[in-house]
């Protein structure tokens, strides 16, 4: 049963941006700033409309990538997927900033064989094996979706660009955000500045608010934007792009999306 829900959530997660923001995918850490190494955080991973309430479907953690300040991969602990959310624990054994991400890279194909409509979703390297050569009306697109958050034990450390897909690169560190102060972020698409990228920033706590706090802004020629946080809380940052930079020849386009959850402290 969990497997079915999981698959559904992954599909929803990666499809979210293609269906006019039907749902939002997110990670929610129990803390973003901790005093010292050795402490733990627990993280919720879910897909929902309202931020940050797990009331729809979980986001599967199969493709979780947790990277320690020194670049080492860290395994999540106590991973559990329930009806509405996945949770997992991370021990922060090193001083500095951890990057916690669910990364879904995939290919979606729809085609007909002998008049019968087929769909396939999988990894790029499996495409040739799974989609028959005689497929008709073949439509293929690739997706790259990164959903991440940042957690720091002690002093924030440098976050290096990953160089692939759409990503946020700190100018202001994502664990050093305070309400009323401007923060600056740079967006990269495959390591190049993502210019004129529309970025949506939504404050959590939507259940208790008549009007959502939603900021829409765009990156400048350097791929940078500045945001002044209207109030403290958890924020959801989202951007997406489409291009033809595909791995598979038959793919018509690549859909790239990015989500970050950041915490803004009270001054």
């Amino acid at each position, binding site marked *: 049963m969990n497997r079915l829900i999981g698959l559904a959530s992954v599909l929803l997660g990666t499809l979210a941006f293609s269906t006019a923001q039907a749902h939002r995918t997110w990670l929610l850490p129990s803390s973003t700033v901790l*005093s010292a190494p050795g*402490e733990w955080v627990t993280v919720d991973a879910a897909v929902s409309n309202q931020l940050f309430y797990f009331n729809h479907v979980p986001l599967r953690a199969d493709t979780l990538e947790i990277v320690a300040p020194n670049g080492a991969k860290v395994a999540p602990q106590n991973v559990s997927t329930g009806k509405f959310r996945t949770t997992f624990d991370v021990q922060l054994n090193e001083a500095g900033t951890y990057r916690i991400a669910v990364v879904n890279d995939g290919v979606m194909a729809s085609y007909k064989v002998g008049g019968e409509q087929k769909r396939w979703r999988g990894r790029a390297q499996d495409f040739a094996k799974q989609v028959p050569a005689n497929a008709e009306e073949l439509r293929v697109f690739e997706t790259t979706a990164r959903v991440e958050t940042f957690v720091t034990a002690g002093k924030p450390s440098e976050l290096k660009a990953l160089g692939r897909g759409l990503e946020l690169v700190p100018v202001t560190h994502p664990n050093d955000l*305070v309400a009323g102060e401007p923060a600056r972020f740079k967006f990269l698409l495959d390591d190049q500045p993502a210019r004129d990228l529309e970025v949506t920033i939504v404050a959590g706590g939507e259940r208790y608010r008549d009007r959502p706090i939603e900021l829409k802004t765009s990156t400048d020629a350097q791929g940078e934007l500045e945001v002044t946080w209207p109030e403290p809380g958890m924020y959801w940052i989202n951007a997406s792009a489409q291009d033809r930079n595909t791995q598979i020849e038959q793919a018509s386009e690549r859909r790239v999306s990015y989500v970050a959850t950041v915490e803004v402290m*009270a*001054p």
Partner: protein
Amino acid sequence: MQKTISLTACVLLTGAAHAADLNVAIEVPRLSVAEYHRPYVAVWIEGPDRTAMHLDVWYDVKLKDHEGAKWLKDLRAWWRRIGRDLTLPADGVSGATRAPGAYELAFPASHPAIANLAPGEYRLMVEAAREVGGRELIEIPFRWPATEIQRYQAQGQHELGAVAVTVKP
């Protein structure tokens, strides 16, 4: 709320023989709450360009495995400016939490936070955070140095009582 009072006359009467260059008075209020824990308190100086000079931090130093340090980040303004760069516990910059009462902290001219303080406008910062309680940050602008004794004070609202800083020539 913040007042500048010249207390030259008073000090002349009480005697300024033990002159320290900076004195900080902090009142930890007695609170009527079901579950009371002594507050964590941080004291520091901020300069015009956001430079920060640490003076003192009170936290639970008695817990085993230095576990009391876990909540230092709840002094969130101090944590961001100073705390996350410090290694605690450290002699002279940290101490145990204190019960409700009035405390005087004296920082002599030789104290590293003020020994090389350039003349100018500064703010004394006092932040308090309490487990199962609130958090409060008091800022008191003051001028450094002083040609005569200057006392500046402010009144906390919930986690802190009266707070004052005295600059002595």
